[in-house]
């Protein structure tokens, strides 16, 4: 994604005013987050690369970026399990590397970053949902050392809450979609298993629990998932299990 449709503000105030006017009715959630990244890039010094990472139960994902370099630098940190962005997301602290060539906190990462041409970075923590262990960071990677002064740190910190709200909405939306997908799968599987149980109950005069035991027994003896056993029974009427003796003759 790029920022082709994002206006180029000349000041932080202008960027914040633009962010304040954005509406979820007009933009998808990932487009909103992309706009935050694009505006951040526009108002920060040294034409940096920007990304937003989301940390869900300590699993990081880059949700938007202004270019491949930011994605690569994020992923370099994910591979190592540490770095300035992960530190900001985990601790809630604004994390700056003034010069990747001399910083000693994450030497294996900073060597790699310097090799990519990233000489300084600023990571703004995003407080998304502490209870659900969801946090994030707005990451700004500059090509020159000591790119950030007090004004740019302040500007990035003021943009942070907008990114946090957008990232929180995106996460909530993705969670709801995941739940809907899982529910649909569970309902489909249960329906097939229930139909198969019904067939066995009628055929062998079993209770519902005994019918499930019969499906589970066939599943275990054939190392096939119970859904596959149920599918086959419903589609073909074939079942190769032995009904429990106690089930025969149910009234």
């Amino acid at each position, binding site marked *: 994604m790029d920022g082709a449709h994002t206006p180029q503000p000349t000041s932080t105030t202008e960027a914040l005013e633009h962010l304040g006017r954005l509406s979820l009715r007009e933009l998808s959630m990932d487009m909103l987050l992309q706009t935050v990244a694009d505006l951040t890039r526009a108002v920060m010094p040294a034409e940096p690369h920007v990304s937003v990472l989301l940390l869900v139960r300590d699993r990081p994902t880059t949700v938007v970026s202004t270019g491949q370099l930011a994605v690569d630098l994020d992923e370099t940190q994910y591979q190592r399990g540490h770095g300035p962005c992960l530190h900001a997301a985990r601790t809630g602290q604004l994390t700056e590397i003034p010069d990747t060539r001399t910083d000693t906190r994450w030497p294996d990462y900073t060597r790699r970053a310097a090799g990519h041409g990233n000489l300084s970075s600023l990571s703004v923590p995003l407080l998304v949902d502490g209870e659900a262990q969801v946090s994030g960071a707005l990451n700004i990677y500059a090509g020159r050392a000591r790119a950030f002064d007090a004004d740019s740190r302040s500007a990035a910190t003021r943009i942070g809450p907008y990114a946090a709200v957008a990232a929180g909405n995106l996460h909530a939306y993705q969670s709801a979609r995941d739940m809907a997908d899982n529910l649909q*799968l*569970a309902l489909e599987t249960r329906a097939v*298993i229930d139909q198969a149980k019904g067939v066995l109950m009628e055929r062998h005069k079993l209770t519902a*629990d005994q019918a*499930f*035991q019969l499906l589970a027994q066939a599943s275990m003896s054939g*190392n096939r998932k119970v859904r596959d056993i149920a599918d086959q029974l419903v589609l073909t009427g074939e079942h190769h299990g032995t009904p429990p003796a106690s089930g025969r003759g149910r009234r």
Partner: protein
Amino acid sequence: MTTTTTDCACPLTVVARCLGGLAPDSLWWAYLECGGNRSRADLTAYLDGIARWPDHEHNALSQALNEALWDIGSPSLAPIRTGGDVPR
């Protein structure tokens, strides 16, 4: 009419949970797919040994645990209970 017994999770069920390696959310979804009806919190309480479950709920969970074990090349461990539901 049937009678249904309840019991705590047996050691093999707990071991199957540990070896299967499913995240708690994934295990709960797999258990629901197998016909389970209890909440995530109930599932945790059962596996932690502080709740008793009827046979049919345990059996749905056992099936889900065993299928997770097959996915990683291990044999079934969680037992299916057969004694509690006796038709008259």
